[in-house]
Structures are given as C-alpha cells and as structure tokens.
C-alpha cells in the first residue's frame, strides 16, 4: 500500500479525467442513439442498415480510432476531444440496437391504445414509448458504461491521461502495486457507473417494482 498511499492525489486526478472520458460519451452516445434507434424502428428498411453499420463500427480497434480521430475531425493529436468523440462512436454503436429493441419491446396493444387516444409524434414517444423502453435501454447502457470504462484506458497510449496511465506507467517501471491500483480503480469506477444507472432506472420505473403487490 505504500505506493498507493504516496499517490492518492495522482490517482484521484486520473480517476476524475477517466470519469469524464468514459461518462460524457455515454450521455452523448445515448442522446444520439435515441433518434437513430427510433428511426430504425420507424422505417423497417433502415433497421438492418443501422444495426450492421453500428456493429461494424464497434469492431474498429480503439487504438486505431483514437489515432485516426485528428485526421477525421481536424483536432490536435493530444486533444482529449479525440477520445470523447471516439468513445461516443462506440457508445452509439452499442446503443442504437438497444434503443431500437427497447422501443420494440413496447407491447403492441399499448401502442394501439396510445394512437387511438390521439397521441402523436413527440408526445407519444416521450410519454409512452420511451418510458416503457427504459428497462431495455438501461440494460444496454450498463454494458456500454462498463465497456467505456475499460476501453478508455487505452487512451494512455496516445498521451491522454486517465487511470490507464497507472497501467502503462506501472508496466514501464515494474511497479506491480501501481498496476494493481489501476485495475482496482477501473473496476470501482465501473461499479459506480453501473450503480448509478441502476439507481436511475429504478427511479424511472416505479411500476416494475409494484408488480408483485397484486392483491
């Protein structure tokens, strides 16, 4: 523990940037995936195209994507924006399908009823479809969150610092404790993300917990 005790400040600074680099893309990715997922449901021909494209995106190695970013969006090589954009792409790739499937999980008779009551457009989406898709979307978001926390650590190789630095630095200087600290910190962070999403889901879906109480 001596190494850890001497480096708390550094660990916290790295953890904070890790939260930003993994968390911000999660939110941006969700915001982008919502309309895309909706479009995939709305137009049946769009669905296979969107799903296979997003699946392909996810197969691009993260290091390659990080390195290519400045070439694509014209940023500086060391700019953390590169990582945020790349991570957002991964998140979208994971979430488009989740959103589409979540919206697809809304029972048909509920949709029919909503139409027949005179719901339309945005109000139907935000008032009926999206709330009912929350359980499926939240499940996908949890996967994306954990995956983001892990992928972001690769960004150390392109000079954007976060908890991954502990791994690369520990490896370079043979400090096992530093490597272990990096692993543990990533796991703790992933658990915190997961817990927050779970909490959010519970707050948004009180009706799911009421199910057992049937009298």
């Amino acid at each position, binding site marked *: 523990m001596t190494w850890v005790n001497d480096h708390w400040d550094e660990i916290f600074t790295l953890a904070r940037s890790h939260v930003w680099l993994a968390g911000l893309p999660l939110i941006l990715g969700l915001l982008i995936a919502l309309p895309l997922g909706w479009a995939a449901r709305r137009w049946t021909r769009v669905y296979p195209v969107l799903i296979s494209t997003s699946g392909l995106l996810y197969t691009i190695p993260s290091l390659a994507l990080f390195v290519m970013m400045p070439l694509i969006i014209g940023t500086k090589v060391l700019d953390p924006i590169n990582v945020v954009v790349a991570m957002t792409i991964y998140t979208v790739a994971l979430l488009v399908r989740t959103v589409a499937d979540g919206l697809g999980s809304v029972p048909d*008779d509920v949709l*029919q*009823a*909503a139409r*027949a*009551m005179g719901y339309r457009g945005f109000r139907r989406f935000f008032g009926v479809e999206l709330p009912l898709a929350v359980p499926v979307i939240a499940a996908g978001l949890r996967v994306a969150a954990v995956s983001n926390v892990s992928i972001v650590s690769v960004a150390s190789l392109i000079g954007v610092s976060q908890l991954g630095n502990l791994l690369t630095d520990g490896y370079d200087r043979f400090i096992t404790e530093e490597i272990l600290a990096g692993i543990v910190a990533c796991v703790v962070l992933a658990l915190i993300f997961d817990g927050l999403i779970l909490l959010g889901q519970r707050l948004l879906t009180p*009706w799911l917990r009421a199910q057992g109480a*049937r009298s």
Partner: protein
Amino acid sequence: MIRFDNVTKQYPGGTVAVDDLSLTAPTGRITVFVGPSGCGKTTSLRMINRMIEPTTGTISLDGQDTATMNEAELRRGIGYVIQHAGLFPHRTVLDNVGTVPRLLGWDKKETRERSRELLARVGLAPELADRYPSQLSGGQQQRVGVARALAADPPVMLMDEPFSAVDPVVREQLQDVFLDLQGELGKTIIFVTHDIDEAIKLGDQVAVLRVGGKLAQISDPAYLLAHPVDDFVADFVGRDRGYRSLQFQPTPRLPLANERTVVLGESVADLSVPWVLVVDDAHRPLGWVEPSRIDAEVRTEHLHRGGTVARASGSLRGALDAALSSPSRRGVIVDDSGELVGTVRAHEVLSLIEAADRPDEDRASALAEEGS
C-alpha cells in the same frame, strides 16, 4: 350518428377486408358488429377513428366526412376500448383514466377529479387509483379501460372485443356494468365481438358480417333471431335461437300461484310436501328444501340452489328458465326488490309464449330514423 357509405378496404396484394359496407349507427345506441374471424369487423371499427384508412367510400360522423377531420382531434373525441385493455403499464390507474383529458389540455386537478369520479362509476374502489395496471385483475383492468375511454365524455365509443379476454362470470358483470352506464350516458357505440350471445345481449342493433367483409344482415336482435336472412346468418345465430329470442319478450302477467314458505331456522319436520321454498326475513327466496330429509330446523347447508330466480318484470326466457331449473318444477318469481311474489309452472309460461307474437318488425330501421 355514424354512417358508412360504400366503404371498402382492400389491402395491397388484393385481400378485401371490408367489401362495400353501408350502414348507419344511430346516435345514443349500441350497434354491434359480429361475425367469424376474417369478417372485417375490427377493420370496420378502426376505420371510424382512422386507425385504418378506407380504400374507397366515406365514413361520416354526424354528417361530417371523417377523412376531412384532423386525425388526432378525431381520435380524442372518440373513446376506444380494446381487448386486453391496452392500459399504459407505467402509469397509475388514475393517470391512465386521465389520459385523454390531459391530451386535451385539462389542468391536473380537474383531470384527477374527473378520473376519480369515473373509477367510482365503473365500480372500482378508490384505493385502486394509485395502483399500476399490473396489480389489477383482468376484469379490473378492463373497467379501467372503459373509464379511460369515457374520461373526456366523448359522444362516440368504439369497443373492440373488450370483454372477451376475461372469464365468463366477470364478463357478465362487465356487460351489466356497461349496460347500466350506457343507460345513463347514452353514447353512440360501435361494439365488436365474435360472440353472438354478447351481441344479442348488448346490441340495440346487430350487424352480422360474413368472411370477406360483406354485411349479411343488420337488424335489432329479436328480429335477427326470428328472421335470419339466409343460412349463414341462421347458422351463426345458433341452434337455440328460438329459446334465446324469448329474452326479448317481456313477460305478460304471469298466472302466479302462492307458495308455502318457511323462514331459515324454522322447523319443517311436520310438513308433508316434497319441496318447500325457504325465504329470508325480508321474504326473499333463498332456495328449496326437502322436508322429508330434514328432521329439525332448516339451515343454510340444506338449501338446494339449482333453481334460478326470475323477475316478474323480466323476460319470458327468465320465467321459463326459473320453472325448468326448479327442483319442485315451480319457478320462483320475484319483484324488482327481490321479494317473492309467487311461483309459476313451465306449461303456464309456454302457453303465454304461444299466445305472444313473434317479432315481425325490425326496429333497427326505426332507430336509424330516430337518430338522424
């Protein structure tokens, strides 16, 4: 008044769901669409609120062509109830009921008051208001569905097999609640079912559709049972239509016999009749007992409950059934408060039936005129 004029629905690929349908659903009445599956009854229903657009022909609401109306506004003015209620699982019962008022821009408080009032109206306890649909039984959900459709007091209601997914006992309760409500509210209702008994019980007029979406016959239920236009309709209305048509024949004055009764708890040991009728303190019939099998006072477990009870103001079907089902062969007749007025024998009911006229006039056309 809802009017179909030469309405046809043809799907790409050539399937005709509804074929040249013309009919009028009079204001304030229940029109039932009934037929086997594939007869286009649900398609016809859904064309009214434009969930499905007709290929040709027009549907008008009080003279206005629905194709010219704003879709969402049209729908908000039409109550809609479907088979599995289609309640919003993420909203409480109260919020479900308040859906359309909120869409119409009523304020929160007004909507909640109205929703509570409707829950009471459909016979749901106020403490159910804050539950979620998954916490209700099928029958309760369906009541919420009806309350939701009525929330904004629409003049028109569309009901697509609303009671067919619940068990027969609950279905009957729901039908009775529904008829009571309709008695008070007088909505213009289109009701879809595949169950001819339900059609006959609920409809002021019944439209029988055949596979391929052609109208086979439209008339009032009594006339339909008495005069089916062809083999298809005759088959569809069923074998025991003669017996069922009795339910539309109001009972004339029955030749009632006085019945010897005992009150629960009294002794019947000294009675020498085979069957005696047991009543409660208010003279309401409870059931029959056989004095020869009881050596002391009558207790609840002695009662034979096989016999049905008919109201004197009810139909001939009820009176005949009371006589047929009674173990003593004497049918128990009560007044509207449930008090015993006497008993009647099957042959006496039958002579009344023979004396009664068969319905020779179709009242459906009269309804249409009265509604226009």
